[in-house]
């Protein structure tokens, strides 16, 4: 009886060790296999402004409200126009800072006179909700100096970016955290 029990016990031990080895194997194999495919630096999500179609989904699909994706102005590309496609609604009667003339629904774009005939447009990021209307307007009628970027002080860097998942033009992808932004005026 005692010998029998020992026999079972040793068999059970054998099964246990075998199982343990089988299970540990992938834990060892996976890191070895991934050794070359591991990045020490990590990733962040960013919008490629050249792929972006200004569909407006950044505003609604980010897990944060307001969205972490905001409008950025590449000043060096801007024409400093009086009649700005990004600032003014299409077909406005007067060129003024009146709310009814502005493209931006939250009034986040500020217009400032620089010198004749130039006006400077700056973005108040606290007000910007990432609707991309101004970006579309600027791209359609102007130099395309307004563009969308994900701001990393707001972005929580989800494992699965929910605007990237629904982005119709696949403009959002992971980029190395050391790069972080894809500025339009530095290309």
């Amino acid at each position, binding site marked *: 009886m005692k010998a029998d029990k020992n026999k079972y016990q040793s068999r059970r031990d054998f099964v246990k060790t075998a199982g343990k080895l089988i299970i540990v194997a992938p*834990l060892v194999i996976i890191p070895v296999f991934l050794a070359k495919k591991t990045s020490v630096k990590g990733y962040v999500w960013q919008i490629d402004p050249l792929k972006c179609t200004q569909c407006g989904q950044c505003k609604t699909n980010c897990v944060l409200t307001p969205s972490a994706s905001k409008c950025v102005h590449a000043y060096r590309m801007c*024409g400093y126009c009086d009649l700005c496609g990004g600032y003014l609604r299409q077909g406005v009667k007067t060129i003024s800072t009146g709310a009814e003339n502005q493209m931006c629904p939250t009034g986040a774009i500020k217009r400032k006179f620089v010198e004749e005939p130039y006006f400077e447009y700056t973005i108040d990021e606290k007000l910007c909700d990432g609707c991309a209307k101004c970006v579309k307007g600027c791209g359609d*009628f102007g130099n395309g100096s307004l563009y969308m970027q994900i701001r990393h002080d707001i972005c929580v860097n989800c494992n699965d970016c929910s605007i990237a998942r629904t982005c*119709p033009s696949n403009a959002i992808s992971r980029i190395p955290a050391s790069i972080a932004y894809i500025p339009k005026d530095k290309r």
Partner: protein
Amino acid sequence: MKKALPYILLLLLLCWHMVLFAQDRFPRPEFESGHVYPTNQMTAPRAQVWEYIDVLVLIAALAVTTWLALKKRSRRGLIWMSVFSLAYFGFYREGCICSVGSVQNVSLSLFNTGYSIPLTALLFFIIPLLFALAYGRVFCAGVCPLGAIQELTGLKPVKLPKAVEVILAFVPFIYLGIAILFAATNSQFIICRYDPFVGIFRLDAPYTMIIFGALLLLSGIFVNRPYCRFLCPYGVLLNLFSRFAGKHLTITPAECTNCRLCEEACPYNAIIPSNTEQKSEDPQKSRKRFIIYFLMVPVFAITGAILIYNLAPAVSGANSTVRLAREIRAEKKTGIESELKNVIAFKESGKTEEQLYTEEESIIERFRKGSPWVGAFLGISFSIGLISLTIRSKRTEYKPHQGKCYSCGRCFKYCPIKVKI
């Protein structure tokens, strides 16, 4: 030819001019007043050091939880550990990065070129598994923020009927299989997308997920840890690793006296009672059943493989490219112009339909390649579950089931045996 040369040169110059000034419809201003361009403040993302500090916190939290569960045997300590993890990994780190979701990063980088897994994600995947292999599911006990929020809200535990529990416990296997398949085909990360509690950590989520999370928490008051038991895909791996744990939490600090006081203690049905009083079955009969079930393993595996293989084209709709191709095909068929944003963006992109269709075909092909493995995995897990029903071992004490036990320490206070440490 010589005559045409000036014209060609002129054309080239014109083209060059167009390339240079393609962006600028309006010339850039030359300021006379000496106006300088403002600069954009592009705030840098969170420093990398912090990601590695997260890993250190994870290791420290696991070590402390192990000590509290196995050595100190303090339920109160484990609860405080849960509070800490909920605060740090949950509300401070806002639920990202977590070990549960890291399964997908591993799968994505294993089966795709062009994505290298961040080292932190790999560590978050491996370290809790190593701890499970050494000390059981201590990760669930007090480190996982998803487990912590449910542990802290599980106030009035009610036991589920065993049959319901066993059937529902198969759901995580399916969830894990599908999540790995979707990540491997670079489609989407469903574990992150349908994470019920991350919305609570961020205090912001789509309303459907808030409702789902709230319902889970509410039901969790009575049916404790519903996500861990019936959904968590990482739990499947922890369960497997914990079964072979070197050391594991015990109900009693010394020798079990079979007093049966702890019988009703575990809300997860994870205490295996001793069966010294039970009559054992005819060994011949149970051996026969074992052999039959063992021979059924390949049958289940192949059935599962075939089943999921046939589902592959339907399941591939999870990939946005496949969905887009289907939409365009439907548009062609019905003649009604689609108003979907991705269809409009596709038309603007200048890609041809043939390109899209070949891309779609290659993605479906990848689904076809991966899905039999998922099916086989499900079949094998199912048949191993069956086999485990036929194995009866003699047990002389009350012990936690190493796979199912979350090391939460609820059973400690039920044991009358006290040992001074």
